[in-house]
């Protein structure tokens, strides 16, 4: 039986912890329970936030295919992630 995992490149919002409400991009699937999250500013690609998958809500948005490819290949830059999240914030009402 396959395991549901967060998709690398998905945007998500923290539901628990001191970072509650912060948006991130999933950059790593560490285990069935844990993901690595970055926002390119507070949490950079060199130091992803390790968080329980159940403590985030996956948003109906994801990195574009080019950024996704660079995340998977390890060539993404922090400013690209940050820009992606800023674009998302601008796209939502009141963002």
């Amino acid at each position, binding site marked *: 039986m*396959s395991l549901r995992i967060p998709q690398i490149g998905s945007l998500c919002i923290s539901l628990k912890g001191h970072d509650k409400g912060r948006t991130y991009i999933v950059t790593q699937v560490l285990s069935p329970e844990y993901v690595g999250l970055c926002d390119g500013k507070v949490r950079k690609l060199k130091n992803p936030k390790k968080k329980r998958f159940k403590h985030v809500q996956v948003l109906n948005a994801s990195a574009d295919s080019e950024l996704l490819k660079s995340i998977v290949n390890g060539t993404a830059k922090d400013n690209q992630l940050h820009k992606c999240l800023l674009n998302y914030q601008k796209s939502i009402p009141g963002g």
Partner: protein
Amino acid sequence: MIPIKNAKEIAKMRAVNAIVAAAHRHIQGYLSAGITAKEIDTIVEDFILSQGAKPNFKNLYRYPAATCISINDAVIHGIPKAVALKDGDIVSLDFGAVLDGWHGDAARTYAIGSVSNSAQRLIEVAKECFYQGLAEARAGRRVGDISYAVQAHAEKNGCSIVRSYSGHGIGRRLHEEPAIPNYGAKGQGALLKRGMTLAIEPMINLGGFEVKVDADGWTVRTQDGFLSAHYENTVLITDGEPEILSR
């Protein structure tokens, strides 16, 4: 922490996975047009019980059946219903068992009667992807090496990889660490060590990689309605060649 199994524990995993493999061989004799998914589920469950093991999917996360039976555009987690298989269908059977507290898991996609060339090729590519991943499943390599090999083979053959579901570690629990995504980069992810047991399971689509979940909350389908195939075995990492426990 990824559990490492000792010799005694591996022997138990061999035993339960042998039952899962035997159940797959047993059900093949029944697969033809007219049989319903519900009937297949009953035959598999009865077989596993007759071997002294128990189906381990049943009631896990409240899943209601012993098997996942996914037909045509259904990728995984199809709940067996009283729907008869038709000539030309492809059907993925995914099930496992638990014996003495140790779990086994395997999936295959079968052709019912004569299927289209593209469907037949899809089934073959899913199996080939598993073996490409298996070739990387060695002590000293990383999970990403498996993921990359699976993805590369699928995409080279014009298929896409389901990204939101993955393989997994297996042992005392059906789902253990690590997750084994079917896409990724070489050299990334957890280091593989002797004694780890992994369920490697490529899920391959003829169309795009996007999937959706039916209203039943379980059945995962391709979003574009194209066919999907699934191939899975439980594998033991050794110092040399990996061992397929559910062969």
